[in-house]
């Protein structure tokens, strides 16, 4: 996912007066124009709408899944517009190439790219609108625009005359769009960098916020599907007589993904699905077993593979050499809202209502499924009940489209929790084999890593394994490790156990930082050095890494006494353009039960749009990462996923929740991502604290209490 785009291609397209007498600013986003022209029947624009009633509406093309983008994007626009924040509303845009994410070149939300990609274009949109409002006011007053300023939704003349943006909207719409706009210096920010309230909160406390599952259409049928229990399995035969006998069941349909029962409402559909009698051919994966996957990956890591980085000579003699093998499991996302999509295939267009992270690609994919042009695929993005990467996948929208097409009805496809848990799209399992070398003074002089996992780039369907054979996501966080090792080697061995894998919050960093930050801790212990000092000693060329590490250590009281039985661990990571360090305070019971009491985090994400959302996202990622570290694993036996619901795929509960403190490093660097970077350091910080508490190294996730029991 390249972060490079050409800022000079940004341009404002058009303005037009709204019927109600308002200013509507359309602007293309970088990278969007080529695609926008290809689908020219749509108005290819993102919009800022200023009503004559002073209502300002920002239309956001990004999906709100909890990360706060429906607040951050309006803040960017409002800042340069000099709007009154209390008058700002946000609306979800329908899918349209004009809303392409500049970093992806398609309309999609993920990779912690939203603020990074829209930081400039959204501010420029606000600045252009502001300039046009000023020009309209100056014209009205027959004044020099230079004698006018703006504040809180008003244009103010030096004489003291004022007009509100609403009063000026119709006239502003007739002004030419400025070719160039001047953006504010961060010192002049009035909205950015402050903790504006989330715009989506009110609807989320009274039940009125509409998620994908809340869509209700006239004549809609609910579908629940039976899918092959083994990846790659095929349907042999189905007896649907019992299903069809259930009141409310309307149709039973076979599609490539499985057998669907369509009924009036979920309960009838679910009962119908459960009543299907199906014979499956389990196919080549019938014997898939987690132990065999572990062995396959361990052998791959031992053998080595494509060279990702090679500096110096890791084979050179060292005073002390240590080796370790780490492993991380497949993981489900377990979003609180199970996967679902509502689709209505009409004769010449289709409408889709879904909590999706990939509405742009969906237009093409679903258009192909339904046999209509991408421009005829209307995607209404609903609130996402958690995304975490899972809702980037097209499985639920594709199947819902097929079911609507075949049935001729609007169809809401609902995954039961068990369906959701067993539907694959897992974070890849991975094994890393490390060797580290220390000189006679305990200085780290060599580091080598051999990582084996399936290829996420290949699994994605929109990326390819690069020519060097190294999957970027399989090695991210290790290949680009910040430590000053004079001899360094990173290899990637690809193995494919046959399980559909997918992006999971922080992607490769989610396991790789656990691996490397644990192993670096092992190196520190072998060198007899304090783990924080040891890291700082290897980060001489990395001021931002040092900055977060020092801040987290200071705020956590690193080195200071703790209550009896409580121990600290530390870890640092860079991902998605941001730097995060975390210190975990952990105790381990005699029964091996791990309790995380407090996590102190620090983040350097460059300029902050909304510091409160930044802190909450770091905290959120800590909780998500802790759930995975303490409990998360998807395992296979006889080809079948062994987990099904929250009893066997537990997640952190309120009574296990640590205190969390997050501190922000003041920075003037461009903004980094924030939805994911808080996750990678938490597992190693906890594992390193467990080592401090017990002397035992956790080298395989999830953490197993039985291995930490005191004799």
């Amino acid at each position, binding site marked *: 996912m390249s972060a490079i785009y050409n800022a000079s291609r940004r341009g404002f397209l058009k303005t037009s007066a709204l019927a109600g007498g308002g200013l509507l600013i359309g602007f293309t986003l970088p990278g969007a124009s080529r695609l926008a022209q290809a689908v020219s029947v749509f108005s290819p624009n993102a919009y800022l709408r200023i009503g004559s009633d002073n209502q300002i509406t920002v239309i956001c093309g990004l999906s709100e*899944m909890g990360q706060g983008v429906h607040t951050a994007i309006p803040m960017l626009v409002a800042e340069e517009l000099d709007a009154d924040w209390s008058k700002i509303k946000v609306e979800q845009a329908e899918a349209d190439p004009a809303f392409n994410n500049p970093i992806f070149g398609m309309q999609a939300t993920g990779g912690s790219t939203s603020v990074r990609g829209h930081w400039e274009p959204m501010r420029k949109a606000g600045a252009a609108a502001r300039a046009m409002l000023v020009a309209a006011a100056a014209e009205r007053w027959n004044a020099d625009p230079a004698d006018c300023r703006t504040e809180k939704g008003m244009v103010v003349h030096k004489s003291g005359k004022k007009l509100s943006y609403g009063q000026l909207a119709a006239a502003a719409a007739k002004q030419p769009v400025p070719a160039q706009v001047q953006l504010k210096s961060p010192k002049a920010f009035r909205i950015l960098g402050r903790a504006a309230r989330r715009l989506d*909160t*009110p609807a989320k406390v009274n039940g009125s916020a509409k998620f994908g599952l809340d869509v209700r259409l006239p004549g809609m049928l609910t579908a629940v599907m039976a899918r092959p229990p083994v990846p790659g399995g095929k349907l042999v035969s189905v007896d649907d007589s019992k299903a069809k006998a259930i009141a409310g069941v309307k149709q039973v349909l076979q599609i490539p993904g499985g057998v669907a029962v369509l009924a009036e409402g979920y309960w009838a559909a679910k009962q119908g699905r459960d009543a299907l009698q199906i014979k499956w051919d389990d196919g080549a994966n019938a014997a898939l077993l987690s132990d065999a996957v572990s062995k396959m990956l361990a052998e791959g890591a031992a053998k080595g593979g494509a060279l990702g980085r090679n500096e110096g000579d890791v084979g050179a003699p060292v005073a002390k050499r240590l080796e370790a093998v780490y492993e991380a499991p497949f993981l489900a996302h377990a979003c609180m809202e199970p996967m679902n999509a509502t689709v209505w295939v009409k004769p010449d267009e289709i409408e889709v209502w879904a909590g999706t992270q990939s509405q742009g690609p969906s237009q093409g994919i679903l258009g192909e499924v339904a046999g209509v042009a991408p421009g005829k695929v209307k995607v209404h993005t609903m609130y996402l009940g958690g995304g975490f990467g899972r809702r980037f996948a097209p499985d639920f929208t594709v199947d819902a489209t097929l079911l609507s097409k075949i049935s001729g009805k609007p169809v809401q496809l609902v995954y039961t929790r068990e369906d959701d848990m067993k539907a694959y799209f897992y974070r890849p399992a991975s094994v890393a084999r490390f060797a580290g070398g220390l000189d006679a003074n305990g200085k780290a002089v060599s580091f080598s890593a051999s990582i084996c996992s399936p290829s996420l780039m290949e699994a994605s369907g929109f990326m390819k394994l690069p020519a060097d054979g190294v999957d970027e996501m399989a090695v991210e966080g290790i290949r680009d490790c910040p430590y000053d090792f004079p001899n360094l080697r990173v290899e990637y061995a690809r193995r494919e156990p046959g399980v559909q894998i997918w992006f999971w919050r922080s992607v490769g960093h989610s396991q790789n930082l656990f691996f490397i930050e644990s192993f670096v801790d092992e190196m520190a212990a072998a060198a007899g050095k304090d783990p924080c000092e040891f890291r700082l000693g290897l980060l001489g060329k990395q001021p931002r890494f040092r900055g977060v590490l020092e801040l987290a250590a200071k705020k956590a009281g690193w080195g200071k006494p703790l209550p009896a039985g409580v121990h600290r661990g530390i870890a640092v990571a860079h991902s998605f353009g941001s730097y995060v360090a975390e210190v975990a305070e952990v105790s381990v019971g005699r029964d091996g039960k791990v309790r995380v009491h407090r996590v102190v985090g620090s983040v350097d994400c460059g300029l902050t749009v909304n510091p409160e959302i930044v802190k909450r996202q770091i905290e959120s990622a800590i*909780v998500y990462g802790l759930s995975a570290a303490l409990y998360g694993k998807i395992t296979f036996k006889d080809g079948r996923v062994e987990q099904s619901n929250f009893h066997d795929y537990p997640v952190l509960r*309120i009574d296990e929740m640590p205190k969390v403190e997050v501190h922000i490093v003041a920075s003037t660097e461009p903004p980094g991502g924030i939805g994911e970077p808080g996750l990678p350091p938490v597992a190693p910080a906890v594992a390193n604290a467990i080592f401090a508490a017990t002397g035992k190294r956790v080298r395989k996730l999830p953490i197993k209490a039985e291995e930490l029991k005191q004799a």
Partner: protein
Amino acid sequence: MISLSVNGKNISVNDSPDTPLLWVLRDTLGMTGTKFGCGVALCGACTVHLDGAPVRSCSTPVSAAAGRKITTIEAMAASPVGKAVQAAWIKHDVPQCGYCQSGQIMGAAALLAKTRKPSDTDIDAAMSGILCRCGTYNQIRAAIKDAAQSMRTGS
């Protein structure tokens, strides 16, 4: 026909008696504020009140709710406790994705209706069955305490 009292209104539904209350609310009555998360009372997203007590509507047959007072998130603003909880939720900007928050608010309101000054242990006991994947637990705890405080002081 099953007669129900939902948020103070008497309603009759034709669903079979074993249909979970959740689906009667969401599909028959179109009240989608109550959420489906797990279907087997493991996540708490579907929490509603039956005669004031929190229950998991996904695992409560509609027949068991007949003749009892059903209260959902849609009616929270109508009760002083519900209002205080919602106000605290807004003050602390608790929700992230928001999907679990109907259940969290119903759980919190039921707790505060019984326990005017809940301790951390009370909060753990009442709320540990309601899962949040966004990790808003610390804000939920703070908001519950705040709501309790505002109810005591009447502010």
